[in-house]
């Protein structure tokens, strides 16, 4: 008697998973990694901060992407303390704004000349600073979709498709040695589709999510003793 509802729930979960899988379009991704001085025992009680580069004139590294990478690392290794980007740049204002942020690890020395800045960084126990530069862009879109509403109901008809491409690079700085210790880059691309016969069915390619997972996994290999 107890088996039937459980089997029903399992079947429902399987159906939902299958539907989610069917509604997800394919993404092609590549990850390149180059690291030196990897911490063999992990980073211990120290913390890391992940920041987005925002110097380019035509794009900004999305704060959501930076947060996604941070969440990916923190959720897979609970021992790694990831300081939130906004919390970090607010507590060190104005030294990490696009105009003032250090561009090279050697610039950290210049920052540490400011006594309150040096104190704050000691307080935060920042061991590694990871700079992410890049963005996700729409590469193409085509098709047309028309929706209408009338006394008998509403509905859509048509077909739309679009492509996205994500391109990100993460640069790892060792705060103690004031040196660059790694560089990870990832590219991901995918085509999303939206057929509509009365109801639009979005089949989305998780391009940015795949890039986030790719960079997050490589960073975990560098930072965590468990990976």
């Amino acid at each position, binding site marked *: 008697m107890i088996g039937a509802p459980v089997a029903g729930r399992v079947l429902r979960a399987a159906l939902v998973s299958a539907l989610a899988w069917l509604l997800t379009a394919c993404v092609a991704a590549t990850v390149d990694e180059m690291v030196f001085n990897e911490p063999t025992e992990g980073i211990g009680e120290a913390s890391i901060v992940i920041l987005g580069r925002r110097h380019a004139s035509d794009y900004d590294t999305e704060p959501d992407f930076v947060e996604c990478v941070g969440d990916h690392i923190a959720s897979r290794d609970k021992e790694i303390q990831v300081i939130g980007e906004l919390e970090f740049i607010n507590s060190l204002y*104005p*030294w990490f*704004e696009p105009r003032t942020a250090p561009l090279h690890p050697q610039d950290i020395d210049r920052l540490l000349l*400011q006594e309150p800045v040096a104190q704050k960084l000691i307080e935060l126990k920042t061991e590694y600073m990871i700079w992410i530069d890049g963005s996700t862009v729409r590469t193409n879109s085509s098709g047309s979709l028309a929706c209408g509403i009338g006394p008998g109901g509403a509905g859509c008809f048509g077909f739309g498709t679009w492509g996205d491409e994500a391109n990100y690079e993460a640069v790892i700085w060792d705060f103690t040695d004031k040196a660059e210790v790694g560089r990870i880059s990832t590219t991901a691309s995918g085509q999303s589709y939206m057929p509509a016969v009365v109801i639009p069915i979005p089949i989305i390619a998780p391009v940015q999510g795949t890039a986030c997972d790719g960079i997050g996994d490589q960073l975990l290999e560098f930072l965590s003793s468990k990976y």
Partner: protein
Amino acid sequence: MSGSMISVPSTPNTAGRALKLAACILALVFLSACGANQVVVEGKFPPPLMTRLPLTIGVWYPDEFSAHEFTDMAKNPRDSSWVVKTGEAQVQMWDTLWGGMFQNFEHMRAAPAPGVLNQMVDAVLIPHVDELQYAIPTQTHVKVYEIWMRYRFELVSVTGEPIAEWMMTAYGKTPTAFLQSDKKAVNLAAVMALRDAGANFVISFTRVPELSDWLDGIMPTTREIRP
């Protein structure tokens, strides 16, 4: 005539009122589409993390600064008009910045001038926004919202004698985000521009030649704590 009106059954009268109401709503919808987009800039601004300069600085906000707004009326029906009110956010940001940058910081009772009874301070800062420009993706086809501002600062004595005058620019941008309205994005770009203004002020204040000379005169022993 009036009698006939009274004798009309209530149903057509109600229908008429409903029709009038619908017409009014429709007119409002059409008119609201023609109205300007108004953004009252709101944001949180952190205090600067720095060694305070041992100065007692006063500030005088001219009315056109504390109530600063930027208006851009659409030149053709397809474009939208914009009103961006930055005054309150300007005062909030500069108060926070200068409060953390100088040992003592005060709002002056009146504009500095000979014979005016005011607080005793080392100098008075008077900010002006000389120019503000904005760009949204529909105008530039680049997927970022941008705000650019040009400031003019006057540093005068309590009696209004000029000590220094200099220009400074600030720039803020934010990427387009799914489901983010134009107004929210313009607000965020303005907040970024204000943060950039604060950062630029901190790093450039002691580098303006006239100011550097003045600082050498009143606090010659503090060269090492200047940012």
